[in-house]
């Protein structure tokens, strides 16, 4: 691996584990066992490292968020469950760059250039979730009982997007550090419990499976 890539990988790991605010470029150089000068040759400061990591995050999450907009999930395989599995993919991706979500306001304030780009991602997040909901309603997998389905979907999407954005800090606040699979699974379960009231019996099975999996995960990690 190139030094530049190694710097990025190490920085991401340290930011995720220790929190972005607690890590300096010196820490990164020390962790890699390279001289601060060598690090400076590749990145002129932490800003540049964060800008590059954010760029990676933007590409990866953008790519994932565009998938359900371009083509309904599970349209090829015929599995409605693909929509639920997609939530895992999404959350795994976000978990990979969790240092951003850990102190979102703080980071966006300090790196004001990222603010607009993050907002664009949020917008894309809403659009992706709205598209999924619309498709599921069209397939009558989701059956909102009220006739004002549109307003309902908007509010539901707002709730989903909010959970998706703050689920990690919520999990961290309430439960401290947990194994990644538990954190991610809990996030999916939270999203599913928002959708569950509108689901038919067939898809409720998945929700129940999620619940029992979560229980057994907690038991096995306790």
């Amino acid at each position, binding site marked *: 691996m190139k030094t530049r890539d190694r710097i990025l990988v190490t920085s991401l790991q340290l930011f995720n584990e220790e929190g972005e605010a607690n890590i300096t470029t010196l820490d990164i150089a020390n962790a890699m066992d390279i001289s601060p000068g060598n690090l400076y040759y590749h990145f002129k400061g932490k800003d540049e490292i964060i800008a590059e990591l954010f760029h990676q995050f933007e590409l990866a999450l953008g790519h994932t968020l565009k998938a359900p907009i371009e083509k309904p999930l599970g349209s090829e395989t015929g599995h409605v469950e693909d929509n639920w599995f997609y939530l895992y*993919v999404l959350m795994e991706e976000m978990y990979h760059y969790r240092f951003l979500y850990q102190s979102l306001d703080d980071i966006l304030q300090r790196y004001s250039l990222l603010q607009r780009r993050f907002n664009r991602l949020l917008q894309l997040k809403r659009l992706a979730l709205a598209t999924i909901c619309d498709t599921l309603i069209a397939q009558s997998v989701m059956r909102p009982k009220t006739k004002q389905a549109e307003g309902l979907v908007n509010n539901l999407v707002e709730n989903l997007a909010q959970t998706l954005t703050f689920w990690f800090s919520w999990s961290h606040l309430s439960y401290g550090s947990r194994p990644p699979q538990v954190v991610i699974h809990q996030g999916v379960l939270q999203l599913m419990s928002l959708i569950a009231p509108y689901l038919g019996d067939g898809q409720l099975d998945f929700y129940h499976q999620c619940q029992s999996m979560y229980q057994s995960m907690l038991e096995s990690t306790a």
Partner: protein
Amino acid sequence: MARRKPDDKSNVADKASEIAKNIWLAGVGAYGKAVDDAQTRFEKAGVEPPKLFKDLVKAGAALEEEARSSMEDIKTASSSVEERINRVRENFSLSRYARGSDLVALHQKVDKLSRQLAQLNNALKAAGVLTTAAKTKRKTPAKKATTSSKKKATPRKAPATRKSAAKSKVKTRAKAARKTS
């Protein structure tokens, strides 16, 4: 005469090595000349050559960057969202089978079995003295029983054949009776 030939050969070899040597020296010379040339040019042009060199490095770095980003594109494209969804589905079904309702059912089965086992154990304990006493005694009678059954089995055959013989006798008698009537 016979001696000269090797001498000639060695001369030829010497010549060959000399030529090789010269070529090598020429190579060195050329190398040296190139170095000298570069040095003089360097001295003449002053700052220009390093600039050119820097440009080359820059161009190389840009190319490398391009190659790297296209590689990344390929990477993200190869692990498409659909593929990742499939992977999650596999993981999910695996963990579901191991942890889901199937496991609960298994637990219930194990519970039921252990309850039955406990009942059996209790029953055995209640008859504890009998069973332990019977165990030592049973061993010999059991063997006898098997041997006796074997012995019994062989003589049984004879009556069976006798019976069939008797039957056939009856049949023939009946036939005879029909014939007569």
